[in-house]
């Protein structure tokens, strides 16, 4: 069953054609990595899936809901589709624990004791149980991102979107965040879509790789096929550029 499906989707910013004839199907439980040069539309694409960006034309089905239908309640989709941002977006006025417990309390009306138990378990899972009562400002970037991942997981989503989760981190912080993401990909049956420049992560974790440039999907192949034998010249060029690093 497909969790996310784009059908002939178009997205514009004024005259700029940000998403061009996008057709894409992601099945439930798949881990898909989305790569491409900056400005290629990766972030725009991933942000349309939970309605942070609207599409102008086409059909976008997420968890059975049509996002382009004005009658669709976006909050129902967001309940089941989490997102992790490049700049974390933790609630600056709440403790780490409150960051994780807030949405389950307000949106899912989860029992308070149960809510706390789940939140502490998740903090344990991302290795930050000792930071439960810290404010976000007291954390390093890598720690913030791990809290942000825990916050998303607390909603028990069917799908999780990662929008360049390690791009704003110092190099020595990246490993911890990728480890957490790798564990999620391995141990859960969630649908994961990850925009990233971490090729080794893509190789290790992804079932599929999608390559975008200029708002179009140029290549959509299995991970081995993509890295061993990319068909698109732009994808080849991109890979040779990033693999020098």
């Amino acid at each position, binding site marked *: 069953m497909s969790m996310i499906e784009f059908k002939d989707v178009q997205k514009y910013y004024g005259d700029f054609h940000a998403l061009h004839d996008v057709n894409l199907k992601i099945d439930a439980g798949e881990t898909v990595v989305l790569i491409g040069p900056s400005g290629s539309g990766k972030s725009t694409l991933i942000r349309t899936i939970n309605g942070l960006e609207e599409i102008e034309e086409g059909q976008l089905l997420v968890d059975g809901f049509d996002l382009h239908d004005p009658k669709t309640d976006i909050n129902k989709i967001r309940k089941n589709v989490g997102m992790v941002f490049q700049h974390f977006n933790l609630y600056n006025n709440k403790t780490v624990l409150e960051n994780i417990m*807030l949405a389950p309390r307000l949106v899912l009306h989860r029992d308070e004791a149960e809510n706390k138990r789940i939140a502490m378990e998740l903090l344990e899972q991302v290795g930050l149980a000792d930071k439960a009562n810290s404010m976000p400002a007291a954390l390093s970037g890598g720690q913030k991102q791990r809290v942000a991942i825990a916050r998303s997981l607390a909603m028990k989503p069917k799908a999780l979107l990662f929008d360049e989760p390690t791009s704003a981190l110092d190099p020595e912080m990246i490993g911890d965040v990728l480890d957490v993401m790798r564990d999620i990909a391995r141990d859960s049956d969630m649908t994961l879509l990850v925009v990233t420049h971490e090729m080794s992560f893509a190789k290790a974790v992804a079932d599929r790789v999608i390559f975008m440039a200029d708002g179009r999907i140029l290549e959509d192949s299995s991970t081995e096929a993509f890295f061993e034998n990319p068909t698109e010249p732009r994808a080849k060029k991109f890979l040779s550029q990033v693999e020098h690093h």
Partner: protein
Amino acid sequence: MSLLNQYFSVFVQGFGHTLLASIIALIGSLVLGTLFAIMQVSSSKTGRIIGNIYVQVFRNIPLLIITLFLYLAVAKVIKMTGFVAGTVGLTLYTSAFIAESVRAGILSIEAGQMEGARANGLTFNQAMRVIILPQAFKVAIPSLGNQFINLVKNSSILAFVGGLDLMYQGNLVAASSFDTFTTYIIIGVFYLVITMPLSYYVQHLETKLKKKA
């Protein structure tokens, strides 16, 4: 000093009305101003237009005209005393400035806070109430403090519509005692009794929140 003794109960009555009008208008304008600030930053086009018109109208008309309009025109339809007309006028006028302060506070909060909350499943209103406004008010405190101090001083508008406030009573005392100078000095001091603690409190709040952050 004999003037103060002689008219003490009159001054106190004025002081009470000024204090009461200030407290009502402070709470009223904070609530109204916050609502219109939220409308102005909402995604609803109608909300933005209404919020904008409200702020522009009440910010750009003199307080005296708003109050006289209430007292002379609106009061013909809805019965109200001068005290009520003055207090409502003061509330409407101040709320437009509060809306601007709160709106600036909201805009100073990075967009990621709202996006994070919405992506997390919160509605716009929940995100506003729990995440954005608490942070926005912190930023807006110095400017809100200014508005509140202005509000107390602007409450002297009540004198124009028989609002029984400090200024109104002062005018009466000055007229009957002929000691205009002393009367207005005393009135000034009474205003200070409200505004000084208010500005110290705002300053205190500012440093306290700065330390916390």
